[in-house]
């Protein structure tokens, strides 16, 4: 008897389980491309893309943007900077320009570099985030070739990125009349990412910033040490200097613009920049002609879709159009084939 019951159990255990999983009968939805799903899908998506494309183009068109490349305008300075021996010589350059239309709302000032490869592999890795956290400012690991100066003193901030920081000063002046000149108030705050300013970059903990950086030296291309970057605002110094933080977020492509200043909306500029004559007063420090680069300034308003880039709008419009075209041809093919099938079946 006992053996028998064992046998029964044995038999049950040998028989594969009748589960949906093991028998490959899991309840499932079989997907296939039916005309009822594909064609309406194409038409609606196409319509959405067309609409979005128009919207994006309109929005990009609404952006007021002025770009001035000043390398050639300041050719004297550019020449001067090509020679490294003139490192400490000042060179200023004034670039007048005209804003034909009022730039309403918030206006942002960017500097733009052409042919500057911030994305070179060896360049992008030449930094030390631990040092920039202010925890261990003598940590210059990974910063080759700018780890230490010739005396062996660690560089702070170390690395090629920091060393090559953009160091032109650009001031904007407004000329309501040919004789009157108003300096446009510029804000250097609010130009960084919150996470960069509050997490990624920290000054060494100390009451006195210069003493916190003792034992380190400035990068070779810098004129001033890192704790004297902004003489006007003591808070905007050290690793927390806004321009420094912006520079350290390396650009993806060799032509890029970085936010430099925001127009402070006070006085005559409460509603943006009025149309009229302006000029940039540039302290030309950053050499670009040595590597066949160019630099410029951009003044721009923004909308919900960002800057004045038409690419996205055009791409959406094109994609939408192509989808409609495809949808129409697919419908035609489908109807024709259906007809033929019906004919052949009957």
């Amino acid at each position: 008897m006992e053996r028998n019951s064992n046998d029964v159990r044995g038999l049950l255990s040998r028989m594969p389980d009748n589960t949906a999983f093991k028998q490959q009968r899991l309840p499932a939805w079989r997907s296939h491309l039916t005309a009822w799903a594909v064609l309406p899908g194409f038409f609606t998506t196409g319509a959405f893309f067309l609409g979005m494309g128009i919207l994006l183009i309109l929005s990009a068109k609404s952006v007021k943007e002025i770009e001035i490349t000043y390398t050639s305008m300041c050719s004297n300075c550019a020449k001067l900077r090509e020679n490294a021996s003139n490192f400490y010589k000042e060179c200023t350059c004034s670039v007048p320009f005209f804003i034909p239309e009022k730039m309403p709302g918030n206006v942002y000032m960017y500097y733009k570099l052409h042919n500057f490869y911030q994305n070179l592999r060896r360049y992008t890795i030449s930094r030390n985030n631990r040092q920039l956290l202010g925890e261990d400012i003598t940590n210059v690991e990974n910063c080759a070739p700018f780890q230490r100066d010739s005396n062996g003193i660690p560089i702070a901030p170390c690395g090629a990125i920091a060393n090559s920081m953009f160091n032109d000063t650009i001031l904007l002046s407004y000329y309501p009349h040919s004789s009157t000149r108003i300096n446009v108030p510029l804000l250097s705050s609010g130009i960084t990412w919150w996470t960069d300013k509050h997490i990624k970059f920290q000054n060494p903990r100390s009451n006195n910033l210069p003493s916190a950086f003792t034992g380190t030296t400035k990068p070779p291309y810098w004129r001033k040490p890192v704790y004297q970057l902004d003489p006007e605002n003591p808070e905007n110094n050290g690793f927390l200097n806004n321009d420094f933080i912006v520079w350290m977020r390396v650009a993806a492509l060799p032509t890029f613009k970085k936010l430099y200043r925001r127009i402070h909306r006070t006085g005559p500029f409460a509603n943006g920049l009025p149309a009229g004559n302006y000029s940039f007063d540039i302290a030309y420090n950053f050499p670009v002609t040595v590597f066949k680069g160019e630099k410029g300034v951009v003044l721009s308003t923004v909308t919900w879709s960002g800057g004045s880039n038409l690419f996205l709008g055009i791409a959406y419009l094109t994609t939408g159009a192509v989808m409609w075209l495809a949808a129409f041809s697919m419908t035609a093919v489908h109807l024709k084939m259906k007809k033929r099938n019906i004919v052949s079946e009957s």
Partner: protein
Amino acid sequence: LSGGLSSSLNEEFCLDDNNRIHTSKYNVLTFLPINLFEQFQRVANAYFLFLLILQLIPEISSLSWFTTIVPLVLVLTITAVKDATDDYFRHKSDNQVNNRLSEVLINGRLQSEKWMNVMAGDIIKLENNQFVAADLLLLSSSEPHGLCYIETAELDGETNLKVRHALPVTSELGTDISRLAKFDGVVACEPPNNKLDKFTGDLSWKDNKYPLNNEKIILRGCVLRNTSWCFGMVIFAGPDTKLMQNSGKTKFKRTSIDRLMNTLVLWIFGFLVCMGIILAIGNSIWEHQVGDYFRAFLFQDEVVKNSIFSGFLTFWSYIIILNTVVPISLYVSVEVIRLGHSYFINWDRKMYYSKKETLAEARTTTLNEELGQIEYVFSDKTGTLTQNIMTFNKCSINGKTYGKLFSPLKKIFPLLFSYNKFQFYDHSLVESIKLGDPKVHEFFRLLALCHTVMPEEKNEGKLIYQVQSPDEGALVTAARNFGFIFKSRTPETITVEEMGKVVTYQLLAFLDFNNIRKRMSVIGTNDTFEFGGEGLRTLAIAYRDLNEEYFKEWFKLLEEANREFDKRDECIAAAYEEIEKDMMLLGATAIEDKLQDGVIETIASLSLANIKIWVLTGDKQETAMNIGYSCNMLTDDMNEVFIISGHSAAEVWEELKKAKEILFGRSTGFTNGYAFCEKLQELKRGSTVEESVTGDYALIINGHSLGHALEANLQSEFLEIACICKTVICCRVTPLQKAQVVELVKEYRKAVTLAIGDGANDISMIKSAHIGVGISGQEGMQAVLASDYSFAQFRYLQRLLLVHGRWSYFRMCKFLCYFFYKNFAFTLVHFWFGFFCGFSAQTVYDQWFITLFNIVYTSLPILAMGIFDQDVSEQNSMDYPNLYRPGQLNLLFNKSKFFICIAHGVYTSFALFFIPYGVFYNLAGEDGKHIADYQSFAVTIATSLVIVVSVQIALDTSYWTVINHVFIWGSVATYFSILFTMHSDGIFDVFPNQFPFVGNARHSLTQKNIWLVILLTTVVSVMPVIAFRFIKVDLYPTLSDQARPLKSHRRQPRRTSSRRSGYAFAHQEGYGELITSGKNMRVKNLHPTSGLGKTMYNSTSWIENLCKKTTDTVNSFSLDRTVKL
């Protein structure tokens, strides 16, 4: 060859190894080094090791070491765990074997000793049913003449018993321990080898030399049967034994997809090198034009390097970055998918045979997708197509026919007998027996007498018949059921219980069956009357009354014939002919070997799937043809059935020529048989000729003709004709020929072949075909052990191929397409980016993303698709065998498909890079802050990529189970959660240099235009795919597209021809010689306890006789002894 071993008991100078065996590869200490060494011998792993080394060179390293080491370690670990488990089980079995006990003669006493301690030169005592511990020289045994019986199933798969003789001088030693202990013979023999059927050596003992051959040797792995004890001296121990010398040489089968995959990986590798070269040249140019100045600016006073050298370094850097086009996880994923498919086969209840509790089993887990590409099936007949259960269901006695075939129209209740569930559908026969019809009695008496069955009385008085062939058993069992019970036999007598009365017959002569006479006779007497009879086991039963004088005269003749030296066989045959004449025909029997259930339907269905089925059988032509008709492979409305049965090459050539003329008409002509090279070339090129031939043809060829047809000058003609024919049946073929036919088709048709069989004689063809299937049936497990797949019934083949095979192939192809697409889309973005980053080998993505993309973000959805996907339901794949065609034509994954996948991947990578590029060119955030930085760019492209490939896998998945949902949605969710984790403040605080992307995800992914980029990229990448697929379904619908919407309905295959049943015939010599010689009879009073273990017959002697007597065997194939019905 001598000198391999000289051993003697007293001197103990022998090979120093003991009997311990190691099949395991590792131990705890050696596992890691050896396993790693083995793994790095694989090209893929070695390649990644190479990459790892490259990454450690700082000048080149463009990726952190962890991007390669994480996947590599994962892959190595998975494989190592698998190897370790396998080895653990080998250790376990080794230990079990090594610790088996055996009785060894030590210091004049028998002692139990572990197998591993047995040394060459030891004398071992074996008992009945024990496994043999080492290769032994048989010294003496319990049986007369020093005979002993062994079963060699573990060695060569043959279940029949074999006889071994001890030398007369040693058999005298008997069981005398003291004399055995003094035995000091020296054996000189050949060195250890793997030839199971050969042994040469000699024994020097007491100043005499005795030659030794295989007959004196018992090999390790055999089992002693029907012999209560025997003594043997160990000649070879442990790894020197023939069993061990034979092991571990299994041929490794690879699928065609495997081979294609390897080629493609090489191509991809070439492609990778090309990309590297392009980028390196680009780098040299860039350095020359721009980089020199720019670098001088960036890195100040750095020594300006040669731009060519910079290009060289860049090449290696790009090889590292772009290495993901050669996907390391490919091989592991493929293995996982195949394993999944194998489990589905094992779990399939529809391939479970409840009567025998047999599961279908995927014994090899690496061949599944090949099951979806089979073009030729080579099937054994007996036991594969038929049940190999012989039933006695018709007889004709004295002109009256008894027994009807079961007819479904008229329900006839079968006679039920107490034994063996025997059924017979005719009551009148029982009536005749009761009435005492003498002819009927004579008929059954004859059946009970004329055979070679051995009876065995089990406890409780149960009578078991040990039969050599199932049909013989069927006849004796039938006689027993009708009241003529064969009780026992001695060399001189046969005892039969006739209708309750026990009668003992004197056995005077036994004329065993052979293939020339095709009959067998027993001449016997009892007290009352002389009796002579002849039983043609085939069908007819006849008898002859002999008077004593005639018999004595004839017997003298026979004895003379036996003494004859030169023409002994002829004389004996003549003597047999003399007495086997003037017989009275009593009647005839019909033994049926029934077809298995569902064979007809399966064959019909497989034919519809364009799978050609060739039957290769050891049976004779008539039987094979009958089976062919009964399973509809041959039909009455066939245009022509070619029968090739010529005895010489010329005849075969003539017959083939005729067949060809009928097929093609005379115009085509026939090559002279020596221009075969061109012919084979043609065959290789394709099947253009076949298309021109219409109509159904069948080819039947027998063994000796096949021998000629397989010769080099005829094989092309044979193959050509055979491939045109709808049905090919090869009968009376040897196991070797079976394998040769398979090889021929494999080689010249470049087709995927499957061999299915159940017996030891099918092993060679099972091993040589791409896929071997074993039927776990009547003939033991040998075929199963050699097979790749096994199940209990032929009909499961339909499900294995049409459902499991088709799905496996379909899934694997989809998997590969997607896998290559995915990796190209992923990797080529770096290539495009190279043109915008000064070819500096800068990666587009975060390094962690590169590490995790293949193994975390995208691995599970593709595995789920590879394991669970179904294009059509199983019912549809069974109902529409045409759906199998794409696999045979290799349509779903081939080189052009591969290029399409690659092109798709390249296109996607293009969209993935250039759309964000266009947008980022002059981009500002909504708050005016710049967002066109490298990190945002990386996150945007990575997110787009994950979404695009997820949408793509969603499109490719045609069968959305819960698991697919979980994996696909889960992967996207995992991506985002890992992304946010790695970009979080916490992890940055701990590892600021490893996770520099802090805050990036939350900043970028809250920007509207980033999402617009992702949406655009996704639509642009996926839309063309949908459009193309939709149009393709409309314009060129595949079969599965058409089958999908159809409601499944069962179609009954039509039966085109009248059903014939397959009657089986025995055609093999029995073991009458052994019976009459009495050699295998136990002398009762000597060993009253020993019972018959198993079927016993002297296979060696009948095989010898067979070889001597049969003239019709072209290849006297003495190695493959098993000749099966």
